[in-house]
């Protein structure tokens, strides 16, 4: 037991003393009350008894007095003395006094202090003294017979009875007090020990078994009595709450620590009034130090590490927050790294408590290394400038095809202002040109592959179409899914024109503009395939002008070229839409006539060609006239035949026509073999 515990009072002793004092106070008080009550009752009862005795005795004594029956009325007196606790009953018998010649004749009974009742002897001084004692009261009653007083009855009472009663009550009270005290103390001690003290000891024992934080680890035992059980339950509930709170605090602390660790931020606690500032390890780590290297830390530690150019900004932000103008204090500053370079940090903080005068007292906050973010911002700014400065149009569309952003170049390219297309569908750029990849095809490719590139014909705001090269790439969203798409839009009008020019040169005859031999080979293969598919006949006509060499010779090559140009134009006009006229060189032309059901079906065209070829042509002032020989072969044939073989057969037929006289045509037999017809 420790010193203070020994000095503290014992509950057991206190309860016992309390019981004893209570009994000592209550029982005597009750005794005093009982005494006065009983005293009053005793006095009244005594008075009543005396009166009753006087009346009854006098009634019985008078006849005996008259009969001189002294011993008889003495007997009555003795009986009355036996019944009542009087000091004495005396009868003064006038008759007897007269008979005996005495001044008085007094008989009766007197009670000695020992309680013995004996006959009264008037000569006995002790008895007389007893009757005249201070505590003795005399009650007299005249004894009358027929109106004549024959004697006097006297009853002597004493308050000794009251005193005796007082003594009895006192002794009773004392005895009761002692007995009740002993019993009560014993009961209280037993009760307290087994019902309160011992359970309390278990209670305290359970309380003393504590963990490192001083929190009891055991559930406190319950008591038998609900008041104490209430205490136990309350303490248990408090302990549960404390444990729960501690666990919650621990969880919160862990969470906070995890957040701090996770966010990798430094923390600081600043006593603004004293300047004392606590930093965490991460704070020091941001600037390349160990926390131990900086200690003891104050706000000056931070201030000295602050970039001189940023101090004014930091000071301004802090003062604004101290003045209550901002709910939080937030500013980005540079701090000197141990290695010598500057580290960008973001400081956030808030004043949590203030002094009684309203001055900021404690401020808590974080310090975040934002150097990388700053670099990213730099890169972003650079990227933004590229975005804005690049000559290609850039637009950002969402997965629904809605335009979300465009750059300046896009606006210049399309004629739209940014505000006119933002929120609009990408379809505003569609040209609806035939032969281009459909919007749907492009979109499917984007969704499945994430990118697409190709040429599309786009439409400017003014409706003008322009070829464009689009490179579309998906920008992944935060969830890894396709978020937006960035479309790089390049105007390739010039490129396309140049390309078309090259195409023209490669596939078309520069003089007449008709397809050349390269085109013929492709179109012939296509026509052959089509004829096979459809079960139709393809006629391949080989045309060579008769007399063209002489025109060149006579009118010059320009006239010859002019003749060829004119003839080409005239021949094209005689052909069907599905027919193809190809200049394969010099004055040789090949005509592909598909969609024939029979060989003769080609003859109208052939004949118109012959007619046109033989029509005169005015070249400058000269009238020039030539003719044409046409060899015709057909496809399909009985055997397998190639395009070259078909051209060769037509060429053979043309030579056959030439040999036959020119300005005519020669049809090959649809089946391989001899000629089929000639015209």
């Amino acid at each position, binding site marked *: 037991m420790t010193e203070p515990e020994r000095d503290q009072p014992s509950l057991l002793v206190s309860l016992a003393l309390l019981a004893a004092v209570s009994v000592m106070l209550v029982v005597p008080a009750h005794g005093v009350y009982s005494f006065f009550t009983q005293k009053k009752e005793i006095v009244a009862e005594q008075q009543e008894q005396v009166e009753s005795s006087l009346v009854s005795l006098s009634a019985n004594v008078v006849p005996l007095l008259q*009969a*001189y*029956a*002294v*011993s*008889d009325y*003495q*007997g009555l007196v003795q009986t009355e003395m036996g019944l009542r606790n009087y000091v004495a009953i005396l009868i003064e018998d006038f*008759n*007897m006094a007269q*008979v*005996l*010649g005495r001044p008085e004749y007094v008989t009766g009974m007197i009670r000695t202090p020992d309680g013995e009742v004996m006959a009264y002897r008037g000569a006995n001084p002790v008895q007389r003294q007893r009757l005249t004692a201070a505590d003795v009261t005399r009650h007299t009653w005249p004894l009358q017979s027929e109106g004549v007083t024959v004697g006097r009855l006297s009853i002597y009472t004493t308050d000794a009875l009251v005193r005796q009663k007082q003594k009895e009550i006192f002794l009773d009270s004392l005895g009761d007090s002692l007995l009740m005290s002993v019993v009560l103390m014993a009961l209280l001690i037993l009760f307290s020990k087994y019902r309160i003290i011992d359970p309390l000891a278990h209670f305290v024992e359970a309380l003393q078994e504590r963990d490192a934080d001083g929190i009891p680890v055991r559930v406190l035992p319950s008591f038998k009595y609900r008041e104490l059980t209430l205490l136990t339950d309350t303490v248990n509930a408090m302990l549960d709450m404390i444990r729960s709170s501690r666990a919650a605090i621990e969880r919160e602390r862990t969470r906070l620590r995890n957040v701090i660790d996770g966010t990798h931020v430094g923390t600081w606690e600043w006593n603004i009034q004293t300047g004392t500032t606590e930093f965490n390890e991460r704070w020091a780590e941001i600037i390349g130090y160990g926390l131990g290297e900086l200690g003891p830390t104050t706000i000056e530690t931070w201030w000295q590490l602050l970039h001189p150019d940023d101090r004014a900004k930091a000071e301004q932000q802090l003062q604004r927050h101290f003045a209550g103008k901002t709910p939080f204090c937030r500013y980005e500053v540079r701090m000197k790294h141990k290695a010598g370079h500057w580290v960008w940090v973001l400081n956030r903080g808030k004043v949590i408590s203030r002094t009684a005068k309203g001055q900021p007292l404690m401020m808590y906050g974080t310090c975040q290394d934002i150097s990388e973010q700053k670099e990213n911002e730099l890169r972003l700014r650079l990227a933004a400038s590229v975005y804005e400065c690049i000559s290609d149009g850039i637009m950002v569309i969402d997965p629904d095809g809605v335009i979300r952003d465009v750059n300046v170049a896009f606006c210049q390219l399309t004629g739209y202002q940014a505000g006119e297309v933002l929120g609009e569908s990408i379809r505003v750029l569609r040209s609806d040109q035939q032969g281009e990849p459909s919007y749907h095809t492009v979109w499917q490719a984007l969704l499945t592959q994430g990118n697409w590139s190709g040429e599309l014909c786009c439409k400017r705001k003014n409706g003008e179409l322009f070829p464009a090269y689009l490179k579309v790439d998906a920008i992944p969203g935060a969830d890894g899914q396709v978020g937006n798409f960035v479309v790089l839009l390049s105007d390739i009008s010039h490129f396309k024109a140049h390309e078309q020019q090259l195409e023209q040169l490669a596939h078309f005859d520069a003089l007449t503009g008709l397809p050349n031999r390269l085109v013929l080979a492709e179109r012939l293969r296509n026509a052959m395939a089509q004829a096979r598919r459809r079960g139709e006949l393809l006629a391949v006509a080989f045309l060579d002008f008769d007399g063209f060499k002489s025109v060149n010779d006579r009118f010059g090559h320009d006239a010859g070229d002019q003749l060829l140009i004119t003839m080409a134009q005239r021949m094209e006009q005689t052909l069907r839409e599905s027919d193809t006229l190809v200049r394969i060189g010099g004055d040789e032309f090949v005509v592909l006539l598909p969609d024939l059901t029979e060989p003769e079906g080609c003859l109208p065209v052939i004949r118109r060609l012959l007619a046109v070829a033989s029509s005169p042509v005015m070249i400058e002032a000269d009238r020039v006239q030539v003719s044409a020989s046409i060899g015709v072969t057909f496809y399909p044939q009985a055997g397998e035949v190639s395009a070259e073989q078909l051209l060769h057969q037509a060429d053979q037929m043309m030579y056959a026509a030439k040999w036959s006289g020119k300005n005519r045509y020669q049809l090959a037999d649809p089946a391989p073999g001899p000629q089929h017809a000639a015209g």
Partner: protein
Amino acid sequence: MIELYVTHLQRVVALLSTVLLLWLASPFAGAAEAPRLAYLVSDLRIPFWRIMADGAAQRAAELGYRLEIYSADNSARQELVNTAKALASDPVGLILSPTSSSAAQTVLELAAEAGVPVVVADIGTEAGAYVSYIGSDNEQGAHELGRLLVRTLEARGWSEGGVGIVAIPQSRQNGQARTRGFITALKGTGFTPAGIRQQVDFSHEETYRFSRELIRAHSDLRAIWLQGSDRYQAALDAIRDAGRAGEILLVCFDAEPEFIEMIRRGTLVGAAMQQPRLIGERAVDSLDAYIKGDSVPARQMLPVLVVSRDNLDELLPVIYNNVLGLNMEQSND
């Protein structure tokens, strides 16, 4: 018989007066005065007390005492007056036959105050100090009387039946003793007490009424026992009036002069007779012994004579002398 008592009384008074006058006139009366004794008697008019006083006076004279007799005439007040007078005469001893045992107590207290020894004769006291009590053995007398009655009834061939009792007040010790002795005598016989009536005013009418009630209530009544002697005629009248004369017998306690003839004739089966003269003599003897410093028994019970026709003649001298206070010659006068 009444005349006999009156004559006897007159003679006694004359005798006493003569003795007293002679004593007072004597020249030695003042010089050699005999020690005084006083006899406080309840009522000298009653023969019993007179006979007792005679006995006392005679014995006092024999022993050299001067006996002064004070009759209270059955008055308590007079008894107290007599007591005061007697004590004022400075007696050496006092014989007390009180008007009641209760009154005796007061007298004894007054005597004690005066320092005078007292012998109580016949009627006892409830309390108080006295030298000796001298009385009749009432229980013995009643018991013998009861035995006599049983023998007489059985002699008549009766083996069972009731005996009615007309008793003196049972509050008195002598009444209790008489009843106790008589009932004890009946125990073990075929005769039982049929009923008991206590006398209050001792009148003829009362005794007659009580007797009639007992006869009427108990058809098997064989006898009536009177615990007193003076109203024997009322009982006889009741038996006669009930038509049961000869069927219901009578026995009495105490004696009347005419009982001698009645016993002899069989009207009365028997009587238990006290001996007052003997009591008076014994009282003076006891006082004398006390004064002389001899030891005196505190209680002296004198035998009661049970007289029947069988022993009447034998006891007659004793009866005359001690019971009736007469001598044979006087009785024959």
